[in-house]
C-alpha cells in the first residue's frame, strides 16, 4: 500500500526531531557571536580556530583517539574468536555464551562506571591508561562480538566445507577462507568499536582525572559550565566524524544490519 500523506507528514516530523539538533549545531558553530544565539549575528570561522588552538581539548582529543584505537584493537582481537564460535560452531552452552558476552550492554553505563571506580580507585588505577582501557572494553567487546557474529554468519558455510574437502585443517580453513571473507565486517566492527570508545562519556566520567582525561568528558564538563559556539564547533566536528564512520560502515556491511539485533 502506498503511504498516505498523513503518514508521510508524521514521519517527516519524526525525522525532523531527529535531525534538527545536528542542523542547528552546523549553523551555530559558524557563528560570529559570543553565545549560542539563533539566528547567529554573523558568520565566521573564529570558533573553529579557537577550538583547534584550545590546548586542553586538543590534548584530550589525542588521548581519546589513542584510547579508541587501542580499545578497538583489543575488542577485535578477543571478540573475533568468540564471534566465530557463536556464528559457526555447535557446542553446549552456545546461547548462554552469546548472552553472557552481551550482558554488559544491558546495564546502565552509570552503574558500570561507578563499579569500576570503586574497585580501581583503591588500586590507584583511576586516570590511568589500563583503567580507561578496561572501562571502555566493557562496552566495546560486546559490540565487536555482535557485529563480528553477523559478519561470520554471512559467509557461506559451504566455502569452509570446500576447504576441508580439499585437505585444509579446520583452523587453516577458518583463518584462510572464512576470515578473509568476513574482512569487510571485521573492518566495520573495528570502525564502530572505535566510535563507541571515542564517544564513551559516562563510564569515562568516573575514570578520568586531571592526569588523564578524554574528549567527551571535557566536552561534557565544558557544556556544563558555559555554552558558547566553541562547543558547537566541537560538536559539529564530532558529528561530521561520526557520519563519515557511518558511511564507511554502510558501504562495508550496511549500517542498519550492523546495528540491528537479529
Amino acid at each position, binding site marked *: *500500500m502506498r*503511504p*498516505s500523506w*498523513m*503518514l508521510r507528514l*508524521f514521519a517527516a516530523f*519524526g*525525522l525532523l*526531531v*531527529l*535531525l534538527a*539538533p*545536528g542542523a*542547528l*549545531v552546523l*549553523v551555530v558553530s559558524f557563528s560570529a557571536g559570543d553565545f*549560542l*544565539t*539563533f539566528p547567529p549575528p554573523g558568520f565566521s570561522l573564529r570558533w573553529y580556530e579557537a577550538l583547534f588552538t584550545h590546548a586542553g581539548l586538543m590534548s584530550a582529543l589525542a588521548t581519546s583517539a589513542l584510547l579508541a584505537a587501542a580499545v578497538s584493537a583489543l575488542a577485535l582481537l*578477543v571478540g573475533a*574468536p*568468540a564471534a566465530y*564460535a*557463536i556464528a559457526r560452531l555447535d*557446542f553446549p*552452552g*552456545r546461547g548462554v555464551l552469546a548472552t553472557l*558476552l552481551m550482558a*554488559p550492554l544491558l*546495564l*546502565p*553505563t*552509570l*552503574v558500570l562506571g*561507578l*563499579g*569500576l571506580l*570503586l*574497585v580501581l580507585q583503591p588500586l590507584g588505577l583511576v586516570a590511568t591508561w589500563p583503567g580507561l582501557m578496561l572501562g571502555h*572494553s566493557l562496552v566495546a567487546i560486546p559490540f565487536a562480538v555482535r557485529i563480528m557474529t553477523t559478519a561470520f554468519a554471512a559467509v557461506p558455510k559451504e566455502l569452509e566445507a570446500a576447504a576441508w574437502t580439499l585437505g585444509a585443517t579446520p583452523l587453516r580453513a577458518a583463518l584462510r577462507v572464512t576470515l578473509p571473507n568476513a574482512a569487510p565486517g571485521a573492518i566495520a566492527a573495528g570502525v564502530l568499536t572505535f*566510535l563507541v570508545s571515542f*564517544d564513551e*562519556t559516562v563510564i569515562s566520567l568516573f575514570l578520568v582525572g586531571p592526569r588523564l582525561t578524554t574528549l567527551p568528558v571535557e*566536552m*561534557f564538563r565544558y*557544556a556544563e559550565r558555559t*555554552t558558547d559556539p566553541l*562547543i*558547537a564547533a*566541537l*560538536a*559539529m566536528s564530532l*558529528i561530521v566524524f*561520526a557520519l563519515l564512520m557511518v558511511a564507511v560502515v*554502510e558501504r562495508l556491511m*550496511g*549500517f*542498519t544490519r550492523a546495528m*540491528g*539485533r537479529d
Partner: protein
Amino acid sequence: MIGWLLAAPALAVLALAFLWPMAGLFRISLNRTTETGAMETALTTESYGKLLGDEFIRELVWNTLVLAGSSAAIAVALALPVALMVRAASPRWRGPLALMAIAPLLVSGTARLIGWMAILGDNGLINALLMGLGLRETPWPLINNWTGVRIGLVESLMPYAVLVLIAGLGRLDPRLEEAAATLGAGRVRTFFRVTLPLAAPALLAAWLLALVLGISAFITPRLMGGGRVFVLATEIYDQALEYVNWPAASALAMLLLGGLVLLMLLRAAVAKFAGGRA
C-alpha cells in the same frame, strides 16, 4: 568445548571489567558511612534503610519514573510513523530512511544536546520565532527545566524505538491492511483498527526498552536540566563523586539495578508473547 575456549579471552576481560566491579559495588553497598562521612568496613543494610526512609529519594524515584515513562511514550509515538514509513517505502528509499533514523545513535549525545540548546534556549530558534512573530514578549523557558530534559530524552530514545519497531513491524503481514482497505475501511480506520492492534506487542517492547534507557539516562538530565533537575542517575553520580559517599551511591545503584532487572524480565516476557503470536 572448543567454543568456550575460543571465547575465553573475551570472557576473561569482561570478568575483570564487569563481574569484579559489580561484586565490588554490592560489597561496598553493605559498608557503613560514619558521622564524619568516612567509609567503614561493615556488613550492614544501613545504607539501604536510609535510602528507603528518605523522603527526597522517594520523590526522586517517582520523578525519574514519570520522566522516563512519559519520554518513552512520546518517543515511541514519534517513532511509529517513521518505522511505518520505512516499511511502506520502496526498497530504494528504505535503506536511506532507516539510516537517517538510526544514525543519531552513533553521534555523541552531548553533541546533539548542544543542538537542542540552540533550538530551545532563551536566544534559540523557537524563542526567536515566537518573539519575532510577536506571540510572546519574554522567552519561553524550554531549557534548564523538566521540559528541556524531556525533549532531549525523547530525541535520544527515538532511534532505539525505531529499531525495535522496524524489527517488530517487519513480521506484520501487509495483506491484512490491504484486506481492510478492500473491504472498504479508510486509511484512518485501517490504521486504528488493524495496524495499531497488530503492532501493539512491538509498541510495548519499544516502550519498555525506551523506559529502561530513560530511567538510567544521565547526560541528558544533567545538561538539559542545568543543575536544577534531579533524577536517580544524577543523584548516584553526585553521591559518588561530589559527596564521596560510596555506600550510599552503591546502595542506590543496586536499587536501580534491581528495578531495571525486573523491567528487563518483563520485556523478555513481552518478546516471548509477541514472538509466539507472529
